[in-house]
């Protein structure tokens, strides 16, 4: 394949649109494409569709939280029996919350983020014609697509989609009699997730193989851009942890359908009676789930960290501070990611000694995280900052990562977690540090690499509006939630009116819902900018619009399949020679001069 791609690149690399590539049919170019760039776009656009759906779901359930006493007739039109009388029913509320979580964590911030940028950037930044296995890469997308279709179809079954929370803890997720969402909806949920795991593994193996084996001449591991390092660790995390989740799901399928008792014991369900299952452990699932679940947080976060490092350095016109420390801290985070899963389980009756080990390891993560933050800040120090929309989102990422990371110190300390666990404090924490921050990383990546993806420019003004409204909105939505958590307000409550302890936040909930709607609208503005610019955006005239050093900007505007015309460029230096010896930037392909200073 790669040989063919070389020829292909030679012949058609200069072509702007690729219309004349006679052997590429519509089907092989846009649908079953094996070009990593097209697959990246497929991941991105599918991710965007899911982001809109997931965001819309959150707006709908925020409607219930903000206006529990009002009715909205359009809800009945939209949701049918799930919005009876213009009010979201508890069943629908829980289904929306669950699907919002599943979709955003897995489909948007894993597939949409890693799938897009690992596919797009790895070959372009390491200097390869394509992925190690373009065919596997294509399969990876189509498994994701199948997972999407199955998840979507679960919205339309009689008993509703799965509604037991994105973590799908049994026995609730195992017993259709305990919750209608755990019937057919849950079957589809598991099938969808299983397909998704396959997609992630196919992708991850490919990313690792490509980074290790297909680097161009001179591209040693310590000359890789930090994005690639981050994507590498992300892929390793995924490959090692997704199979564990998969095994957990298989046991769950057996418990649901074949009468086994891996997770079930001593259960009496109202209206059904005592179940025959004995001897299982409901907690076992949580160990299997969080063995993926925690690395998953970093699977979401690391690509964002990598891209932010890159964008901060480029737009500060300065080298990233502490390149080796950045790699080291990524490595430390990746290792620790596997050793902290039980901090999600401090209140499950865990052995206290085991709990204490997890406290120690969890808080240890704060050290590499602190290193990263301080290194980013030092990168800005005495730089010459250009506020491109990508740069704004990168700065926003750092701000959010600090805010959300610090509350991790509260929650990782088990004795304090006992109080705050499963309250709105947790919602605030993980939305800021994982959800919104990674989303910011993704936006930064899109704004930065859009010209490379489509050969067009996004509208800057819309980008600025998008950034300022989104960061202000994100803080307005999630910052006050810390206070709700400090009042002990539990997550996943449909209505707080019967609670003497939690009903004092009515006005605040209304405010949060309102802001979330505005923020959602602004995301639509971004999407409009994105799709409008693909077709009608200003054409890119400068091959290297950001004055960056990395290899992807040495490829032609709108590179064909194969990326470079002629030889793949050779690399002579690390990717952060910005401002060296008074020169604005020196591309990685420039040989080291005799009179150049050493760093």
């Amino acid at each position: 394949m790669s040989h063919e791609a070389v020829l292909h690149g030679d012949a058609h690399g200069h072509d702007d649109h690729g219309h004349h590539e006679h052997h590429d049919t519509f089907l092989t170019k846009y649908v079953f494409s094996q070009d990593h760039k097209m697959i990246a776009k497929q991941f991105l656009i599918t991710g965007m569709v899911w982001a809109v759906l997931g965001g819309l779901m959150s707006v709908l359930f925020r409607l219930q939280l903000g206006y529990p006493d009002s009715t909205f007739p359009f809800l009945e039109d939209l949701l049918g029996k799930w919005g009876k009388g213009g009010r979201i029913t508890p069943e629908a509320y829980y289904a929306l919350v669950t699907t919002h979580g599943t979709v955003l964590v897995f489909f948007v911030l894993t597939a949409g983020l890693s799938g897009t940028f690992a596919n797009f950037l790895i070959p372009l930044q390491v200097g390869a014609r394509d992925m190690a296995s373009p065919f596997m890469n294509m399969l990876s997308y189509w498994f994701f697509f199948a997972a999407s279709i199955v998840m979507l179809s679960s919205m339309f079954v009689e008993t509703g989609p799965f509604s037991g929370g994105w973590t799908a803890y049994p026995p609730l997720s195992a017993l259709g009699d305990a919750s209608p969402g755990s019937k057919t909806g849950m079957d589809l949920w598991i099938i969808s997730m299983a397909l998704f795991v396959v997609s992630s593994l196919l992708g991850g193996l490919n990313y690792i193989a490509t980074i290790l084996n297909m680097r161009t001449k001179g591209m040693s591991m310590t000359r890789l851009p930090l994005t690639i390092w981050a994507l590498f660790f992300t892929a390793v995390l995924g490959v090692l942890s997704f199979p564990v989740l998969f095994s957990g799901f298989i046991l769950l399928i057996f418990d649901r359908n074949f009468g086994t008792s891996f997770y079930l014991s001593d259960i009496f369900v109202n209206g059904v009676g005592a179940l025959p299952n004995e001897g299982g452990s409901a907690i076992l699932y949580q160990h299997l789930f969080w063995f993926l679940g925690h690395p998953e947080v970093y699977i979401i976060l690391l690509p964002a960290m990598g891209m932010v490092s890159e964008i901060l350095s480029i737009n500060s016109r300065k080298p990233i501070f502490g390149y080796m420390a950045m790699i080291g801290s990524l490595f430390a985070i990746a290792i620790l990611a596997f050793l902290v899963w039980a901090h999600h389980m401090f209140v499950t009756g865990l052995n206290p000694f085991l709990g204490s080990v997890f406290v120690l390891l969890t808080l240890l993560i704060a050290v590499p995280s602190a290193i990263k933050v301080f290194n980013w800040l030092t990168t800005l120090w005495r730089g010459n900052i250009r506020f491109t929309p990508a740069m704004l989102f990168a700065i926003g990422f750092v701000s959010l990562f600090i805010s959300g990371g610090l509350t991790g110190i509260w929650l990782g300390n088990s004795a304090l977690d006992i109080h705050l666990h499963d309250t709105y404090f947790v919602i605030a924490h993980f939305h800021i540090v994982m959800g919104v921050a990674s989303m910011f990383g993704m936006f930064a990546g899109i704004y930065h690499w859009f010209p490379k993806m489509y050969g067009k420019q996004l509208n800057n003004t819309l980008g600025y509006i998008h950034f300022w409204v989104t960061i202000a909105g994100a803080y307005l939505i999630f910052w006050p939630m810390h206070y709700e958590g400090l009042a002990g307000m539990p997550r996943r409550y449909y209505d707080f009116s019967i609670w003497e302890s939690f009903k004092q936040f009515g006005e605040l909930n209304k405010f949060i819902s309102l802001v979330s709607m505005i923020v959602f609208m602004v995301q639509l503005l971004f999407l409009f900018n994105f799709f409008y610019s693909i077709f009608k955006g200003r054409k890119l005239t400068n091959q290297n619009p950001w004055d960056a050093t990395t290899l992807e900007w040495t490829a032609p505007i709108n590179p064909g399949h194969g990326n470079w015309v002629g030889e793949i460029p050779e690399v002579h230096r690390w990717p952060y020679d910005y401002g060296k010896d008074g020169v604005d930037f020196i591309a990685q392909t420039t040989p080291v001069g005799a009179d150049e200073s050493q760093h």
Partner: protein
Amino acid sequence: MTMFLTIAVVVLIFVVIFQIAKASEYVSVLKGEEVSRKQNNKINGFLMVVFLVLGLVGVWYCNELLYDKTLLVQDAASVEGARVDSMLWVTLAVTGIVFIATQVVLFVFAYKYQEDTNRKVVFFAHSTKLELIWTVIPAIALTVLVVIGLRNWFLFTGEPPKNAMVVEVTGKQFGWIYRYPGKDGSFGKKYYKNIDNASNSLGLIWDDELAQDDIVMEQTVYLVKGKPVKLVLGSRDVIHDVGLSHFRLKMDAVPGIPTTMWFTPKYTTKEMKELTNNPNFQYEISCDQMCGNGHYSMKGVIEVVDQEEFDAIMAKQKPYYYTAFPEKDPSAAPADTTVVAAVVKNN
């Protein structure tokens, strides 16, 4: 109608924003890209400081507005909870300082080092000394927090004091069942297949004599002020969680695997009503683990009373055994109705 109006307005706003954005793009082409880029840079650099200042004011204002609605204003209602509170303040102090310092540095740097044609950037790629400083200092701060945290953790999860009373709490979709060991001070055995909603909600094994004096209640559970209590938690169906925000504790209730938690109530419910200035105050048990569609309504109530009151309440309770076997009740036929009355009262 309002629906369409709202959509129309939103679309209109969209169109206006888009036109402005498009126009600014043309203007930048006319003025020269470089000039307009520099102008944008200035605006965004300025907005960085504005955002920082507004953000910090916002943090303060948010605190003014919401502080009184949190539990921070109240004393923890358990002796152990007070430790959680002090830990919370220490953690807030440490993370608060870091938060303000790093956010200020971030946005001030962004403002201060915005593009300036006269500035020559410093090629500053690494410094072992600096990197060591910000590895070691966080490590030390975290060690302190871990030590405080683990001391509390081992206390909370350790053995309760010898004089602790024991109450069993069982979750079910969607409510709580409480069991006291009765006069003999020991719980009788139970087996989930004996569960019968009408007469044996916990599946007690009646052949076990220890079970025959066990007292079962629903909705409200009574605890004694100043007396440590150990709760033995379980669930009949899915995983629930006993969330006690006023006592600052919580623990999962898992089917098949008993878990425990213990604490010492500090104030009676009456005292809390006065302390919080809220005549409706209740110690609520909130279910804090997603347990199904009724999760949000799975409420229990703890009533903390003093010892005499507690003894008086307990004296009125009949063993659950007599609900299952009314004919064995020594206080004969009329007793039947009193048991029902007691249950009703507890509801």
